């Protein structure tokens, strides 16, 4: 069988000019990438443009769309809740990200140290939170941070003589609880990424520094940190963009109350669209969120470039 096939094909090739073979190849190329572009156009590209369109219309999802100009933007910019959602998001992004990356760096440094044993156990335990779903994380932490004076977190605080906190409604209590969830789920992930970065630094550099009498801190400051710069920039970038899209943790943790102390930008969008049926203002907030993310990305890139010099 194969022999015959080859024969047939060779004769075909001989008959056809090179041009068609080339054409066939490009047709195949288009064919192979077309499923992506078809589905992506329908379910991603079109929605993105339609969001911009909807942002200038008033619509409850069912009736007629009504053009209202900039009114939706005015409406949400006048809504104190919207500003609250922005400040909440930024505060929680900072609280969830900065300590997380610092701790991840320290853990990675410890894991990379040659004097530590049981590395595999530590690696697996620290990474395990990352495979749990955010819903599960939010529920579990919801029972750790309960309002009750006898909830486990409040009991722990009482050992330090701190009076119990209403985690479900306190301005900072809520933010601490939600940031903890982000911290817990992602610290191991970033630890492994930092660890990979540290392992690629040749050991000779440290040995040479030690011979020159560099202290541990000097080694970190002048060898580890500079060489890890691209990795660190990457993790900062991913974590900031990710935490600007915070949604599941506050939604599950806040439950039906949707308290404003914990509302985030995406939660605001979700509430406008699917609880208030205000698709226009929801789209306007989506557009603003989009630009905020772009601005933060640009700032990230500029800082990264600056540091890179």
């Amino acid at each position, binding site marked *: 069988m194969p022999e015959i096939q080859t024969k047939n094909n060779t004769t075909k090739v001989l008959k056809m000019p090179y041009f068609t073979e080339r054409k066939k*190849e490009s047709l195949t190329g288009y064919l192979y990438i077309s499923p992506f572009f078809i589905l992506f156009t329908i379910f991603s590209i079109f929605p993105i443009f339609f969001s911009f369109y909807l942002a200038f219309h008033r619509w409850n999802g069912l009736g007629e769309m009504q053009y209202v100009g900039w009114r939706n933007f005015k409406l949400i910019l006048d809504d104190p809740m919207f500003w609250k959602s922005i400040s909440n998001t930024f505060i929680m992004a900072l609280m969830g990200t900065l300590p997380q990356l610092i701790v991840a760096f320290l853990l990675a440094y410890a894991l990379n140290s040659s004097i530590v044993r049981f590395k595999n156990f530590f690696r697996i335990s620290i*990474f395990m939170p990352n495979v*749990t*779903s955010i*819903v599960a994380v939010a*529920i579990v932490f919801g029972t750790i941070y309960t309002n009750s004076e*006898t909830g*486990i977190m409040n009991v722990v605080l009482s050992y330090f003589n701190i009076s119990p906190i209403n985690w479900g409604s306190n301005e900072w209590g809520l933010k601490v609880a939600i940031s903890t969830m982000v911290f817990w789920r992602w610290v191991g992930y970033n630890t492994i990424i930092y660890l990979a970065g540290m392992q690629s630094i040749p050991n000779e550099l440290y040995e040479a520094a*030690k011979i020159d009498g560099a202290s541990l801190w000097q080694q970190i400051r002048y060898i580890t940190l500079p060489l890890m710069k691209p990795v660190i920039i990457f993790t900062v970038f991913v974590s900031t963009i990710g935490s600007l899209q915070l949604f599941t943790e506050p939604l*599950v943790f806040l439950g039906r109350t949707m308290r404003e102390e914990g509302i985030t930008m995406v939660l605001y969008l979700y509430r406008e669209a699917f609880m208030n049926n205000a698709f226009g203002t929801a789209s306007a907030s989506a557009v603003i969120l989009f630009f905020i993310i772009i601005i933060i990305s640009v700032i990230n890139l500029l800082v990264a470039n600056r540091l890179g010099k």
Partner: protein
Amino acid sequence: MIIKKKLSKNKPNIFTKLFLYLMLFSGALLSLFPFYWMFVIATNPNHVVNRVPPAMLPGEHLVINFKNVLETIPFFGALYNSFLVSTTVTVSVLFLSSLAGYAFAKLRFKGKNVLFVFILVTMMIPSQLGLIPSYVIITKLGWISDLRALIVPGMVSAFGIFWMRQYIKEAIPDELVEAAKIDGCSQLRIYWTIVVPLILPAFATLGIITYMGVWNDFMWPLVVLKDESVHTIQVAVRLLNDAYVRDYGMIMSGTFWATVPLVVIFLVFNKFFIESLTKGAVK
């Protein structure tokens, strides 16, 4: 001799060692505690959650709590839905991404580079931007409370194509493809008999990333799956938590048993999991 002495002087410092271990132990402890806590509450009656001192031992309500879960939500149905959606989406993403990745890596056609850059750009757009229109489209298609609402839009992935293209470009020499072509191999056959066997590691990595992503996805299923019978496990478990009267034993039981499958798989294939999930980042 002098160098050796200096080196060894730098090494054994007991305090450094103690400090490193302390840090790692507390890291591991804090990472593992919520899992244990989940199990403790899942096996105890409701009131134990707020007991002083905090409950630290498993109780005897393991079966009762889980029975209550089964009475409140269609737990196994939801698990099945999650399995169905994640598996279908993953298989489709692997197939379509590798096909497109092969085209971008090895085939010549006009506009290839522009289209590829376009894919890269779309990866940076936050998915929430198109959330509302996507919901409208799904409504128009009549797919609300239909698993197709999760499967069809998820069948392709920009990241998947990017990942596959990079891998195929490195793993498969141009000469191999050329030789096969000269031998009269059709493009589909080159893809199937030459490319696929050589990119199995890339399939594994992308497969894990995709499967985990779909399995743990929450926002989109929450928006489009209104009917309880089509809920994925994430939406169903969240429903447990949202009841007016909270039975923590039951809530944690549902959460625990929804978490166990992935954790077990993770523990068995831990090295591969950790590598895969972080590999997408480092490259």
